[in-house]
């Protein structure tokens, strides 16, 4: 594995992979995470990951020498073959200029039709790398290059809960009402984060996600079910 280790202080270290968004790196991160969870259970307070980083918050103090040893142990892990046996979660989205108020502008920027944007966005299979930004916000890898769009210079004060948007090389869903600098293209009726549940989110890190275009009517039906806690997620 191509990893560097950085010791911020005696109880906080970070591993960094090359600066790319890739499922290969995600797979290695998962392997390293499992290694730490199994081998260093007692010593670890929390593990967080980013696209190319894995951060360890420790209960014990470690030295620079310990870091070198850890890196060596990681490099001796057997290389993993094959791919994730991960689920593809279907997430319904109502794409329309009403629920995605930047859809028309985006079509203008990329000089393609609204239909084409929806087609590209909903036919791609995305990978869930990690949660961050807001409770239940999925960092997804895999956006088609044709849809890369620089973030807005001036973020909106409020994006409604469920807004599906594109920002830079990423796409995602705002799980709650929030300020945001991404371009809205649609809205998802499903509640993505429920703190009353034992596990407040559904897709797991490494799972795949695919957006399913739905009509306004279906949107309203699902929204009602979801609010009543009766909506069940489905996957391939």
């Amino acid at each position, binding site marked *: 594995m191509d990893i560097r280790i950085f010791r911020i202080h005696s109880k906080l270290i*970070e591993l960094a992979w090359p600066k790319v968004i890739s499922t290969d790196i995600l797979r290695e991160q998962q392997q390293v995470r499992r290694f730490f969870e199994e081998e260093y259970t007692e010593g670890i307070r929390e593990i967080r990951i980013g696209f190319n980083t894995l951060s360890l918050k420790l209960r014990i103090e470690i030295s620079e020498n310990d870091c070198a040893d850890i890196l060596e142990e990681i490099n001796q892990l057997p290389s993993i073959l094959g791919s994730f046996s991960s689920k593809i979660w279907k997430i319904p989205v109502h794409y329309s200029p009403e629920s995605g108020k930047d859809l028309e502008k985006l079509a203008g920027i990329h000089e393609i039709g609204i239909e084409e944007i929806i087609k590209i966005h909903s036919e791609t299979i995305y990978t869930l790398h990690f*949660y*961050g930004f807001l409770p239940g916000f999925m960092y997804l890898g895999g956006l088609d290059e044709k849809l890369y769009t620089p973030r807005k210079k001036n973020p909106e004060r409020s994006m409604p809960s469920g807004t599906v948007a594109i920002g830079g090389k990423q796409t995602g869903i705002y799980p709650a009402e929030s300020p945001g600098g991404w371009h809205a293209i649609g809205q998802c009726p499903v509640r993505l984060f429920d703190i009353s549940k034992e596990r407040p989110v559904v897709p797991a890190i490494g799972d795949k996600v695919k957006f399913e275009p739905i009509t306004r009517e279906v949107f309203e039906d699902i929204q009602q079910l979801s609010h009543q806690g009766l909506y069940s997620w489905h996957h391939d």
Partner: protein
Amino acid sequence: MIKTPAYIHFIQPGLMTTVQDLGRFGMAAYGVPYSGVMDRFSMTQANYLLQNQFYDSVLEMGGPGAKMVFEMPTRIVFVGADADIYWNDKPVKAGKILEIQEDDVIHIRKFRKGQWLYMGIQGGFETEIVAESRSWYPGITPQFKIEKSDSVCYLSEERFYPALSSHAKMNLNWFKHGEIKVYKGPEWDQLPKLMQNRIMKKSFTISTLVNRMAYQLEETIENEVEPILTSPVYPGTIQLTPNGTLIVLMRDAQVTGGYPRILQVENNSLNILSQKRPGDRINFSL
């Protein structure tokens, strides 16, 4: 011992008034921030003075204005920012245990020094525990900020309190000095030596952009540090934006961020930093 649920009614909410404890851990994997008191040192003192558990929840106030009425007897204490506190219109000092009676009124007025004032209460508050913490945060707890005419529950204890011998001497100067201890962050080495030296030698001013998520500093550092891919951040992480602004992440910080992380504030220094107000100056030391 009989404990009766009672309420504090807020006639005025004050600024950024919330219930906080030490925070919510183990939920970062779902994107949930730690939250918890901005200044742990003061919270711990308040609970110590009341002989509470060290983790009992307290009321955190980020400015003047809170005015509240107590339904039933309890004991409270104020610690943290140096503020004008009135108990039934009479001024009272921080660090003194106040034996609150039915219908007593507390009014917080001018903040003289410091950013956060804590009110500890006998046994802590009885607000909802969500994911093992009472710390308020939008989307996680039913309440996330005291609004006018809100109420907060506590347990009134009808028993004889042994009088505490004397009230503790409060050192209100503990957060006065401006030296903030830091560690190098993952992207520190991407700054040219000249810039590193400048950051360490320069004084920085706390801007008016101060809240539970982050404190922004006024002075900017021109830089060409390459952007990073979204990576983990923590309370105390100092981010450097492309336009040169330094952002110190605080307790409600999101769990990941996309700006280079140049420094990480040491834990005790984070308590000191949290008590700085807009216009206050700080220096970093490695």
